[in-house]
């Protein structure tokens, strides 16, 4: 019953374990925005900088390469940059610059004076130039709060601690709501729960409508579980995007808010900024972010605020978190081929997450020993966690020690087994159907064609002249069949 789909565990594991990009949520959001939206965004130098960095290297360098010139970017140039054949098709070249086009950094290719060119978005170009030269005027890198020097300010460590506590608090709440095993967690503010509900990470099983949830009775959804397994950066961006979408939903302008996110990303940990001066248009949003621990405020209504590492790490590109030891802290798992798992962590949250799919046997102060066994994994899968998610979680948290053994990182046996268990869950695929048995070949074929055109066909077995159709289309198909029958009969 081993299916070919994972007969190559190596590729499989690698493909599944390479997490897409931490900013996937952001990208999808941006992809759906219009020119005007970007024009709005690119008013801020910080945004230009971050967007530039989010481009793939090649595209990025071509943009930089072109930054200081007046002429529009020519296809011939790009071809010569990337060693493309001169006669390469325009599509190919366009493909190279696709990311820039998607972000509206370049306007679509046009033919001008016999040359194919992309004219560049002036707003972006200006923004980026100003970012490099520091000649901007939008205060997009945050206006420092002018405090008297003897004023007492929190250290970086304190800020990190604060941010962690705040955000993990939310995650813990989600976990505990799901597992029932409650470590005492303070319930987050209503707004937060609100968002969690809207984003579908948590739901109130008691209300059918899904409209009026009692936020005190909410439990985590399968989507929520999946969310837990993501790495931190992805989680942050997802939350932010949910927040943004929510704002859009009640038709507020989200551009300022988004550009604020980027500005936060470009700020300095440990430095304090003036809210009112930095984000005059997004103050309320800033307050909301405080609830997730993105920023720390000495007093709730103070104008002064400190971005925490959650905020400053937002834009730090690919997985490289600003603080080195974060990375190490994340790497605590040792997985043996006998399914034993050693987790060198004392982090409540991580343990709770492990508890989702690991049968935890021993708990020491800084070490948890458990076992990947069928029961727990399957129960986790019941919760909607897929094998790939587990695998990617395991590999992204793998202890440095595990990298010393020859690849693949996770032993194929385990990867396979996880997939097998995943399959077991749904051996049967059931769907309501109406089965038609034919005797006449041509009638059969006609009907099949008819059904396929109306997307009514579920399955057809020409050898036996069986066909299966969606029940709701039964009437229509029956009519058709009758009609055909008459035609055929009378056709004689």
């Amino acid at each position, binding site marked *: *019953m081993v299916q070919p789909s994972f007969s190559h565990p190596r590729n499989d594991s690698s493909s599944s374990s390479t997490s897409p990009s931490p900013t996937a949520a952001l990208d999808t959001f941006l992809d759906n925005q219009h020119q005007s939206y970007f024009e709005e965004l690119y008013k801020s130098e910080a945004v230009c900088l971050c967007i530039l960095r989010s481009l793939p290297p090649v595209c990025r360098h071509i943009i930089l390469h072109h930054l200081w010139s007046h002429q529009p970017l020519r296809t011939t140039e790009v071809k010569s940059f990337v060693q493309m054949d001169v006669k390469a098709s325009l599509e190919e070249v366009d493909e190279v610059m696709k990311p820039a086009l998607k972000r509206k950094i370049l306007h679509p290719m046009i033919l001008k004076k016999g040359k194919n060119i992309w004219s560049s978005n002036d707003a972006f170009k200006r923004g980026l130039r100003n970012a490099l030269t520091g000649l901007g005027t939008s205060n997009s890198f945050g206006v420092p709060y002018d405090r008297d020097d003897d004023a007492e300010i929190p250290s970086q460590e304190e800020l990190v601690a604060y941010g962690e506590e705040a955000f993990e608090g939310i995650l813990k709440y989600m976990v505990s709501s799901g597992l029932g095993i409650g470590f005492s967690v303070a319930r987050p503010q209503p707004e937060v729960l609100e968002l969690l509900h809207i984003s579908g990470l948590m739901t109130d099983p008691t209300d059918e409508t899904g409209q009026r949830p009692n936020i005190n009775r909410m439990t985590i959804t399968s989507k929520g579980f999946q969310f837990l397994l993501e790495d931190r950066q992805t989680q942050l961006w997802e939350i932010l995007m949910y927040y943004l979408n929510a704002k859009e939903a009640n038709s507020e302008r989200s551009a300022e808010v988004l550009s604020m996110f980027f500005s936060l990303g470009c700020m300095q940990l440990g430095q304090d900024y003036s809210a009112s001066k930095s984000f005059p248009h997004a103050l309320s949003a800033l307050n909301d972010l405080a609830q997730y621990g993105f920023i720390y405020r000495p007093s709730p209504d103070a104008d002064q605020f400190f971005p925490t590492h959650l905020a400053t790490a937002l834009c730090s590109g690919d997985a490289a978190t600003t603080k080195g030891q974060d990375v190490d802290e994340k790497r605590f798992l040792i997985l043996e081929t006998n399914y034993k798992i050693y987790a060198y962590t004392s982090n409540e949250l991580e343990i709770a997450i492990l508890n989702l799919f690991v*049968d935890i046997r021993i708990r020491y102060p800084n070490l948890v020993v458990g*076992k990947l*066994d*069928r*029961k727990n994994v399957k129960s986790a899968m019941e919760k909607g966690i897929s094998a790939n998610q587990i695998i990617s979680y395991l590999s992204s948290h793998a202890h440095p020690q595990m990298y010393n053994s020859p690849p693949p990182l996770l032993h194929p046996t385990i990867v396979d087994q996880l997939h097998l268990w995943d399959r*077991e869950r749904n*051996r*049967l*695929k*059931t*769907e*309501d*159907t*109406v*089965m*038609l*048995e*034919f*005797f*006449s070949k041509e*009638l059969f074929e006609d*009907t099949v064609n008819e059904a396929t055109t109306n997307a009514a066909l*579920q*399955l057809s*077995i020409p050898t*036996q002249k*069986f066909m*299966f159709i969606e*029940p709701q289309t*039964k009437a229509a198909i*029956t009519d058709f*069949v009758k009609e*055909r*029958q008459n035609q*055929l*009969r009378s056709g*004689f």
Partner: protein
Amino acid sequence: MSSAYGDAYAVKMTSGVLVTCDSAAKQILLHLDSSREGLYKFMIRDVDETHLIIKREYVDEIKELLQDELEKNTYIQDPNL
């Protein structure tokens, strides 16, 4: 006369639940079905290697049964090892 054609062009309609599964699972289902009596038989039609048609009301029960069957067939390591 027309009846002859009628036969030729007759179409038989059966409504039920189409079950798609791997052949192993299907064999188990067949076995389950054969072990049942009259009314309780759930299988309407054995379509082919990987398809069955069964009575709608039995679907969930069948799934249960199948899982149990599989549980029986899987070796659970003694947790104390």
